[in-house]
């Protein structure tokens, strides 16, 4: 489990806000590609650690929620702001042939990669035609 370390030196090391906090939601950029074995989803979730990601599958809908670490502005004055602290949320409807029981996911440098394997019984099979 990731532990936030309280250090005295940094003025405003970003920290992960609690789940209850009311951050607005934004849509993260995603890439999705497929081959005959799986569908792969990659999403940009800058500032989100492994612990800040929630992936759920409910009634065939995959939902990604990423809560990033944000700067506790406290006494700091913003002088330039291109993005507002926000939670990343995105949902996808899964195709019937995907096995939502064996989804795997990992985070690398703020990029989430989810692999959804196809069900074994949905992969194309070659059926031999027997001579009568």
């Amino acid at each position, binding site marked *: 489990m990731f532990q936030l370390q309280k250090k005295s*030196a*940094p*003025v*405003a*090391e*970003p920290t992960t806000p609690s789940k209850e906090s009311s951050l607005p939601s*934004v*849509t*993260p*950029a*995603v*890439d*999705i*590609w*497929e*081959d005959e074995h799986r*569908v*792969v989803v*990659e*999403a*940009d*979730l*800058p*500032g*989100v*650690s492994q612990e*800040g990601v929630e992936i759920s599958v409910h009634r065939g809908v995959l939902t990604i929620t990423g809560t*990033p*670490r944000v*700067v506790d*502005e406290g*006494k*700091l*004055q*913003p*002088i*330039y*702001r*291109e*993005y507002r602290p926000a939670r*990343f949320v995105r949902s996808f409807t899964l195709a019937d042939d995907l096995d939502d029981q064996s989804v795997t996911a990992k*985070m*690398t*440098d*703020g*990029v989430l990669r989810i692999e959804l394997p196809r069900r074994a019984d949905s992969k194309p099979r070659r059926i031999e035609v027997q001579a009568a």
Partner: protein
Amino acid sequence: MLTTSHLSGSPSYWTSDPFTEIDRVLRAVDRAWLDASAGARDSSLLNAYHDNDSLVVTTELPGVSANDISIQIVGDTLSIEAKRGLTAPAEGRWLRRERRPFSTARTVQLPFRVDSNTATASAKDGLLTVTVKRAAEDRPRTVAIQAS
């Protein structure tokens, strides 16, 4: 895409030359276009905060490892350069493609003189945080009034 932007101590930042302003507008248009077309968030967005003694700059750099980031402080300018390439799958079919490779160079005009020896940076989870301290000789000093 190479982009630069300037800022000053005031919330409504000024720009020092027309090219910077054009660049800022292009960037805004670019972002609006991306928002409209894909509904997705742009990369390498930057925020800066300061108090009396320090400046904190955070930049969203998803998919960029620490090795691909360079930070420089020259005079009153902090520069951040970063790039990411995206590897396409060897085989397979795209269903959606919104993430983009980028090569970005951002500059931040420092609101005060800084001691570059005290600068610290951390790249974690695709978020770069740079902290610089105000130079000791540049900090406001209280001058005591002596009783006559």
